[in-house]
């Protein structure tokens, strides 16, 4: 009886090994699903964008995308998982600007965004907007800044966390215009927006989808003071000024970009890129993204790489100018 037990265990072992071997006999890339790591949490626009792309990519790639949420640590867990994963083109991530461009300057994330990852396809981006409820007295950013000069430290602005993307915007405004705001950090952009909408803080940040900001601005419930983009946003008919126009050097574009770990072979990246470009022309995907209130902005190749690097440098400079010293 003992012998038969051993036999059973051994044969299970052998079968298991054979099974896995046979299963992944190497055919053309890709021959199994691609895992997409989401370093942000579940829910949220990142997650939705990933799943939207995943729902159409099968036709263009031949294999599905598996969106795997690996949130936590401000992106640390997901991005370090990407860094450690095998660079065979079967594991990629949908990166977010705050994870690769801002957080590494603020604390030790365990990766170097420039050398550890290869960004290869930008889905779109959503610039930050500084908004106030329409009952508030400030009609534009200049009004707000003038008022802040008169009453230093009295006007409250919420942010999505200390040393996060929106906090930097507040700091830049304060530095550039020599004014003082009351910064109130919240855990995440949603809560920060809620505080603004509920009238608990004077001003807040959003992108076009947070709380339906796009339609609220159009309907006059919210007033948009400035946008953190390079050019005036066409979603708003180019009516609203950018921060740069008004003398505040602040950009935050909340990127969604597909990234691969360093060492992933170029030809496999090309396959993914082509498939993604094709997918971004698909009507279904366009419709889905539009429903989220955004639009696609596919970008790849050297232009993307340049934008990526300059984004990281931009924030590095910002932190340095503020005298921030990264611990450990």
């Amino acid at each position: 009886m003992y012998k038969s037990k051993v036999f059973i265990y051994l044969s299970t072992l052998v079968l298991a090994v054979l099974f896995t071997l046979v299963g992944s006999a190497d055919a053309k890339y890709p021959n199994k699903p691609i895992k997409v790591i989401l370093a942000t949490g579940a829910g949220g626009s990142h997650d939705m964008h990933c799943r939207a792309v995943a729902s159409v990519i099968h036709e263009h790639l031949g294999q599905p995308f598996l969106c795997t949420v690996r949130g936590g640590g401000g992106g640390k867990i997901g991005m370090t998982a990407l860094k450690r994963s095998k660079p065979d083109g079967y594991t990629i991530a949908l990166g977010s600007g705050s994870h690769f461009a801002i957080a590494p300057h603020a604390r030790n994330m365990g990766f170097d965004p420039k050398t550890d990852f290869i960004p290869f396809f930008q889905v779109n981006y959503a610039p930050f907007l500084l908004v106030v409820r329409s009952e508030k007295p400030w009609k534009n950013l200049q009004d707000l800044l003038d008022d802040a000069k008169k009453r230093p430290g009295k006007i409250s602005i919420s942010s999505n966390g200390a040393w996060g993307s929106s906090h930097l915007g507040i700091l830049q405004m304060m530095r550039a215009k020599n004014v003082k705001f009351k910064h109130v950090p919240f855990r995440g952009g949603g809560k920060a927006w809620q505080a603004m909408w509920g009238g608990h803080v004077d001003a807040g940040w959003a992108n076009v989808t947070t709380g339906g900001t796009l339609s609220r601005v159009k309907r006059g419930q919210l007033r948009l003071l400035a946008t953190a983009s390079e050019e005036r946003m066409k979603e708003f008919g180019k009516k609203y000024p950018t921060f740069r126009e008004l003398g505040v050097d602040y950009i935050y574009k909340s990127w969604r970009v597909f990234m691969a770990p360093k060492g992933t072979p170029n030809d496999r990246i090309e396959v993914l890129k082509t498939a993604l470009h094709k997918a971004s022309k698909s009507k279904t995907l366009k419709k889905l993204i539009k429903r989220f209130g955004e639009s696609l902005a596919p970008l790849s190749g050297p232009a993307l790489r340049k934008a990526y690097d300059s984004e990281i440098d931009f924030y590095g400079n910002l932190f340095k100018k503020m005298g921030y010293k990264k611990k450990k």
Partner: protein
Amino acid sequence: MEQIFDAIVQAITLQALGMVALGVFAGITVGAIPGLTSVMAIAVLVPFSFFMTPINGIPFLLGIHKGALFGGSIPAILINTPGTAAAAATTLDGYPLAQKGEAKSAIQMALYSSTLGDTFSDIVLILAAFPLAAVALLFGPTEFFALMVLGLTIISAVTGSSVLKGLLSMLIGILIGLVGQDIISGSERFTFGIANIADSVGIVPMLIGLFAISEVLIQSEKKIVELANPPESSHLKGGRSLKWIELFQAKWAILRSSCIGTAIGAIPGTGAAIATFISYALAKRSSKRPEEYGKGSYEGVAAAEASNSAVAGADLIPTLTFGIPGSASAAILMGAFMAQGLRPGPELFEEQASTMYGIFALLLVGNPIMLLQGKLLTGLFARLVTIRKSVLVPIILLLCVVGGFIYQNNIEDVKLALFFGICGYGLRKLKFPLAPLVIAFILTETAEESMKQALLLSDGDYFVFLTKMAGGFPVSGFLILLSVFLLGMAIWKKPWAEAE
């Protein structure tokens, strides 16, 4: 009016009903497995909904949300492990009932209360979403803090016999809650360089460890003879059915808890766990038989479950009215709504009223469907306790490990769960109550942040918690005074020299 009627009739097709039923079933299953969250389930299934019509796709996902909040009570009752954080309070009375051999009736009570609670909040959603949302918006940092204080005083109701140990347990919960990132200063606290807890300790691995794994370890102490043979209560086949009178006696608890669950669920940023603990404690205070609580009170199970299911419907209120999700699952649901072209906000109910009413109708219908499925599944689940422990416990332990991994696709969470397993084991052997720890843990993060945010806004004025007006009513002050009152009553009733 006729338009509404038409919309509803059009919506209730066999196909749509089938989708709801499927969703509810999936939800119950997901809720019943610790480690599987409805967040994950909804997230995975959302892309399928992209290609369905709104009437089919959305109710499917909503069904999952519903089912999960009931499903979480099943392991809470059977193995003292909440399947979802929201079911944490259900363990307090559900598990003792199961140990007495009344697992089936306990699950049925959970089922009926869940259905009633969910129906209540669905009706409120349909009738009063906007007014309620407007009230919910009044909750700013000051009010949130006051609500957390109320939650903390509730702990006095669940300390068990030793007040000092309950207090220590609560403080340990606070200390664990402080681990992670401090959003106000941007510092990392007590993470010991471990990336996994860099922003906070995961609630799911913690619950799995604290409750399930500690239970496994406690069971491991039993004599081999006892473990290897079928349990003595197996002849009961899991227990008897719930008697009508027992359900009827819990009616006030259910009603009260449904109201509390709906109210708290409508406030974005508060979770089902908070609602369920507050409801449980208030039910105990108003009960005619408070001494039963903690030892196997059906009323306790009813209060906990009605409340957490009420959150299911109420969650949608801030989500749909102004597009701020009340919880992670609501966030994903919102994405699903948007993908269907249903943009949250006032337009939703104006321009797309017919679709919304159809969805609401299906939402309501989901409740009796859940009831039906629950009744059929209950017998099956309750039978599980008849499996001999020597086989059941290893499987449970395996599920704990798998569940801990699946939560965030991270093996480190399993190690975290094991760590909490030892902690839970130690605490239980030393007769420390676990409930205060869990409640304190859940509340600490929001309490600390809200307090600091409120003080920032008030420029350091501590009196703001008592004086701030929200909508013409000192909400924060009211909640704080209520907490002081409840705490005072608790101290009054409990003589200090308590015999253990």
